[in-house]
């Protein structure tokens, strides 16, 4: 066994060292590009998925969302529920919001958006909108007659839907808000935020007390969003069970099931990622197959001679498979160097702008190892098939090339 491996590696080494340098270089280059493509695609979709998930959690709904029962419009007795939730170890904070559709007007412009009432201190524990204020300030508990709006409402700071916005309202200016109960009130724009997530940037916020005074409601919310400790990410269901055990009868969901669109988008990303990665892998495998096949065709006679003088078939197959694996490893190494020195730094410096936020590459070492293993396995198969075909041929047919 050892002798055979030794002869295989000797033949493979000689074939590479003495082989056509341009062919070897081109093969390695193609494989390296195919590998970069595989790693880039998985990193890009990884980045897209992570950005989408983080944006949903950080700007829209926290880790866990409590919504009214199916037959109810609101959650009643909010403060009592929040007390129970906040007492659970691992809960960072909870924020109860009352949501309603309003019409906001500024000069000749107006439009319909959703306005949220919040307790700013509690909201800060769950979302990061307060960190995204690009002009003016965030709300404080005592604020009255003041509103914070997203850039898609103000129409400033590079709003995507500028045409559907208030087209240029600035901090300090007044906007008029018409509530569902018919109350019309003027608010001073206290701050404008840009979370880079369109869904969040189409929202407006006023304080809880302000909403209660306008609508005449008390201790009522449309939803309660909850933030859990970073270390417990992915264990939302454990908390949901605890909430239920405390007698919270409202509907409780994790951010994943609450944001169905994001979830289906992530699933689609995953499918595209697998397809693009699979095609990249196939390209690399076919390249290796062609290189080894051409090698085998060119050396048909020599391989017949080798077999005639008693060199065993598995030694010949081994030598060709080793060459294929060598191409794959070299291609992967060059691809990795190029990826880490050029591609990744470029995308960190120049993130891609997507509706769900600025996306950079999420480099997963697990994905890199899987891609590497896939490429080496594919090259092993691509090297094996033509060499196996060649040693099945009759020795005399190979020697006489007939």
């Amino acid at each position, binding site marked *: 066994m050892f*002798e*055979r491996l*030794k*002869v295989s590696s*000797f*033949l493979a080494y*000689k*074939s590479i*060292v*003495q*082989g056509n340098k341009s062919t070897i270089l081109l093969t390695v280059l193609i494989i390296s590009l195919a590998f970069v493509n595989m790693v880039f695609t998985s990193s890009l979709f990884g980045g897209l998925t992570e950005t989408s998930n983080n944006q949903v959690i950080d700007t829209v709904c926290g880790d866990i969302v409590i919504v009214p029962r199916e037959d109810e419009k609101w959650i009643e007795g909010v403060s009592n529920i929040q007390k129970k939730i906040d007492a659970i170890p691992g809960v960072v904070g909870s924020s109860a919001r009352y949501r309603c559709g309003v019409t906001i007007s500024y000069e000749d412009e107006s439009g319909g958006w959703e306005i949220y009432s919040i307790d700013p201190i509690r909201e800060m524990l769950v979302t990061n909108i307060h960190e995204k204020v690009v002009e003016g300030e965030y709300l404080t508990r005592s604020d009255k007659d003041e509103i914070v709006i997203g850039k898609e409402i103000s129409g400033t700071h590079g709003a995507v839907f500028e045409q559907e916005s208030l087209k240029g309202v600035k901090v300090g200016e007044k906007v008029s808000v018409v509530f569902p109960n018919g109350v019309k009130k003027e608010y001073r724009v206290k701050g404008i935020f840009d979370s880079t997530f369109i869904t969040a940037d189409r929202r407006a916020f006023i304080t809880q007390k302000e909403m209660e005074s306008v609508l005449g409601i008390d201790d009522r919310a449309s939803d309660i969003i909850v933030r859990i400790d970073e270390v417990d990410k992915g264990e939302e269901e454990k908390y949901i069970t605890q909430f239920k055990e405390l007698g919270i009868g409202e509907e409780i969901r994790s951010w994943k099931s609450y944001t169905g669109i994001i979830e289906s988008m992530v699933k689609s990303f995953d499918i595209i990622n697998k397809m693009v990665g699979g095609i990249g892998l196939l390209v690399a495998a076919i390249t290796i197959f062609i290189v080894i096949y051409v090698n085998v065709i060119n050396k048909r*006679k*020599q391989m017949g*001679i*080798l*077999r*005639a*003088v*008693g*060199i*065993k*078939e598995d*030694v010949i197959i081994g030598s060709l498979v080793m060459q294929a694996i060598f191409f794959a490893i070299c291609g992967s190494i060059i691809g990795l160097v190029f990826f880490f020195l050029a591609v990744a730094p470029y995308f960190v410096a120049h993130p891609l702008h997507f509706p769900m936020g600025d996306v950079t590459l999420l480099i997963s070492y697990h994905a890199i190892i899987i891609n590497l293993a896939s490429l080496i396995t594919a090259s092993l198969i691509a090297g094996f098939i033509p060499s196996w075909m060649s040693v099945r041929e009759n*020795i*005399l047919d190979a*020697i006489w090339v007939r």
Partner: protein
Amino acid sequence: MNEYIVEAEDLVKIYRMGKVEVRALNGVSIKVKKGEFISVMGPSGSGKSTLLHQLGLLDTPTSGQIVIDGINVSRLSERKKGEFRLKELGYVFQEYAILPELTAMENVYLPLMMLGVGRDKCRRKALGILEQVGIGELADHLPRELSGGEQQRVAIARALVNNPKILFADEPTANLDSVTSKRIIDLFKALNQELGQTIVMVTHEQELGRMADRIVHLRDGEVV
């Protein structure tokens, strides 16, 4: 003790090309003594190369029996035949058939590596044989740096490196000029006379064939 190293009896080889049957060997019986140098001659299509392939275990006869050094090799599996070729037989083909990526020395010691011989011993033995065939100074040259005659000498050295019981040569001078051809046959003659190497050579050149101890003439797949 049996004086014959090869005893082939009633060898028949039929090739089927569609519905047509071609009888390449038609009951050939041949015996080769140890240390004998035999030329197999005959016109094109007489079956001389086919006979060499059967005797050299590169092909399997349709019927008949081959015994080499007391072993009935006709009954060996393909795997065992491969091992037998590696350990007991040597081959020289018409077109030098050496690997272009390996130096002369590496081409020669490849069969030894396959037998598990250590690198130093491989190199020593290969160099010794290359010197024996007259190209020791070219040991580190690649085939593309060698002439046709020199490449054929490398092939002969490779065939001899495992001390084969029989050296089979299939038209070894077909691609060489007359002077180089003569030198190659002289080399065979010297190997035969000085080392007692048994050689079975196929050739269609009368002058070279006559240099062997004995000539076996074939015509239409039969010994004549």
